[in-house]
């Protein structure tokens, strides 16, 4: 049969069942009698729950009162949010001295200031900024939170961190305004852009030295009041523990995952043992072991406080879980990528850091963020071994005389707090995934 097309077939709009609200409703909610019934029942359940919650939590709720009894006097079948608002500081900071709270806030603000440039499009040198966040910020924040005498090492690190933070911030502002880096800006301002590379480098090192000296002399006179770790608590403590856990999980995980895939049997067996040991034990057991058994393994004379023990335990635990995630990512990278990296002459470390790891981590973003979220929630277990983190404080309120027996409201508040943090994290991971996969799908 012979056929030759004469006219192109015309394009027509989709039928109404595809492209209208009624069409959508019919297709998705009322496609059969059973589906219609289920839709109506579900809507009814949602309606009843929302109405109940609304009247209990909003219309009948008490927002200001001094004690739980007062709450009941005002409204017997409403939520007593007064207790939550009165205890807000406790939830956020635990028993951190009230007149020193600014230190915690300042620490948080510094972290935001430090990391914000990582999201600004025109700023250069993001790897450097990221590295200094991991290696310098903890010293500054640690001293700010704990206070007390600083040894010479801490003085140097704190000064370096302050200089770095100032430089980062300046660099970001200049970068956003002009697209230049701080060194380029300084050299131009001094009119030395014609000088040789060596001279330029010397000028920059000189400026850095002067800044460091000024900060170092300045900080010598100031000492922050000691706040013992036993006073740390609330959301602040939760974020400290999980923050350190999250920051160290990836490096530990990467090292363990590479070790597990190593060709050297000793390293491989060591890593497998370590990973499987930690993964086969619940976190709460690891925490108990860390606080009771770790001191037995330490050399005599070294006494770690409970917080440090807990943090070490959390880091190792999260690192081992991350190791398995990273390993899954490594296995998902096709063998051809390893071979191609070899054939352009890259050695093991070049291949891993430039070719394989970026792809593996990108593939694993949802899992990585998932385990970060898990870690954040898991750290509430430290309340069982006597640390007053957010969960500890949410439960402590019911033992406070004026608010005795107040359980539901603070826990609901805590739940919403966790939901917000975790939801933001998972949304961000989606965004990151979309951004990284833009234009480079296999």
């Amino acid at each position, binding site marked *: 049969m012979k056929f030759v097309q004469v006219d192109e077939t015309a394009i027509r709009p989709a039928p109404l069942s595809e492209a209208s609200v009624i069409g959508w409703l019919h297709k998705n909610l009322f496609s059969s009698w059973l589906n219609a019934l289920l839709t109506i029942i579900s809507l009814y359940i949602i309606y009843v729950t929302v109405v109940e919650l609304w009247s209990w939590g909003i219309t009948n709720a008490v927002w200001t009162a001094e004690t739980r009894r007062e709450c009941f006097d005002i409204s017997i079948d409403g939520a007593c949010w007064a207790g939550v608002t009165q205890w807000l500081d406790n939830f956020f900071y635990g028993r951190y001295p009230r007149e020193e709270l600014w230190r915690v806030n300042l620490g948080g603000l510094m972290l935001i200031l430090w990391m914000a440039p990582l999201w600004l499009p025109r700023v250069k040198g993001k790897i450097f900024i990221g590295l200094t966040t991991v290696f310098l910020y903890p010293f500054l924040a640690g001293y700010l939170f704990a206070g007390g005498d600083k040894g010479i090492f801490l003085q140097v690190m704190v000064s370096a961190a302050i200089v770095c933070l100032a430089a980062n911030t300046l660099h970001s502002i200049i970068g956003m305004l002009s697209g230049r880096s701080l060194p380029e800006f300084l050299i131009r301002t001094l009119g030395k852009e014609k000088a040789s590379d060596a001279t330029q480098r010397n000028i920059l090192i000189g400026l850095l030295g002067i800044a460091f000296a000024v900060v170092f002399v300045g900080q010598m006179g100031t000492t922050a009041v000691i706040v013992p770790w036993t006073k740390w608590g609330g959301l602040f403590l939760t974020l400290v523990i999980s923050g350190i856990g999250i920051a160290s999980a990836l490096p530990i995980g990467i090292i363990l995952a590479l070790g597990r895939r190593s060709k050297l049997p000793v390293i491989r067996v060591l890593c497998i043992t370590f990973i499987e040991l930690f993964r086969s034990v619940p976190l709460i057991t690891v925490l108990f072991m860390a606080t009771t058994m770790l001191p037995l393994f330490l050399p005599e004379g070294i006494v770690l406080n409970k917080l440090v023990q807990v943090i070490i335990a959390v880091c190792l635990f999260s690192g081992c879980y991350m190791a398995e995630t990273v390993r899954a990512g490594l296995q998902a990278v096709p063998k051809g990528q390893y071979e191609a990296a070899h054939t*352009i*002459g890259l050695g093991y470390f070049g291949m891993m850091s430039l070719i394989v790891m970026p792809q593996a981590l990108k593939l694993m973003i949802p899992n990585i963020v998932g385990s970060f979220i898990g870690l954040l929630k898991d750290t509430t277990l430290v309340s069982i071994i006597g640390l007053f983190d957010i969960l500890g404080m949410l439960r402590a309120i019911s033992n406070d005389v004026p608010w005795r027996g107040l359980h539901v409201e603070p826990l609901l508040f805590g739940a919403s707090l966790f939901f917000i943090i975790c939801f933001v994290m998972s949304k961000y991971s989606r965004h990151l995934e979309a951004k*990284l996969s833009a234009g*480079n799908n*296999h």
Partner: protein
Amino acid sequence: MTSMKTTESHGQLASAASSEVIIELNKVNKWYVDFHVLKDIDLTVHKGERIVVCGPSGSGKSTLIRCINHLEEHQEGDIIVDGITLDKNLKNIDHIRTEVGMVFQSFNLFPHLTILENLTMGPIWVRKMPKADAEETAMMYLERVRIPEQADKYPGQLSGGQQQRVAIARSLCMNPKIMLFDEPTSALDPEMIKEVLDVMVELAETGMTMIVVTHEMGFAKIVADRVIFMDAGDIVEQNEPIEFFNNPQHSRTKLFLNQIL
């Protein structure tokens, strides 16, 4: 059909082989666990020589060239590349790999990097070339494979033929002495085979030492100084292309040529 077009436009290339030996294999044996893949392979390749390796699948031809840059390890015999014997010494292996470029059947571009970054990765990190120079070289090779306008795209946005040309350019950026091709056109749609073969013919014209595993017999006729036929881990027959195709000696060669031509 595509390869016939190539033949018309180019005609047989003159040999560029010199007397200098650049690859030497002596009694090379390899096993995958207990499967004997390469059996007593002897092969000498001269500088500038262009060799096409063909044979049925599973005959060991890919394994042979993958041994030359040590993507596969051989168990017995010597492989000497550019005067260096391949052994357990990682330094030697890394050095040889910088001198030997390789193009794969499945392209193996780095999907997380742009085309330009794919090309500059080796020169910058292995050859320690300044970034600006590396990019200049990369653009030169991209022009040679006729896709400079794709420099800022990601591999996933390119067609198979374009990706394979990028892969060739990526190898050339390392300025290798030898190029290995492992079935470079087997994963391509028919209409893209020619653009890749044309680039390879041009490369051959520059006097590059090439070992090509392929079933593109038209390409072999124009470019090859020597065609090697492998079967079951043996080199069964090798000869100049005209003799090889017109007057095959071994019964297995005859059978193979009957099946593919």
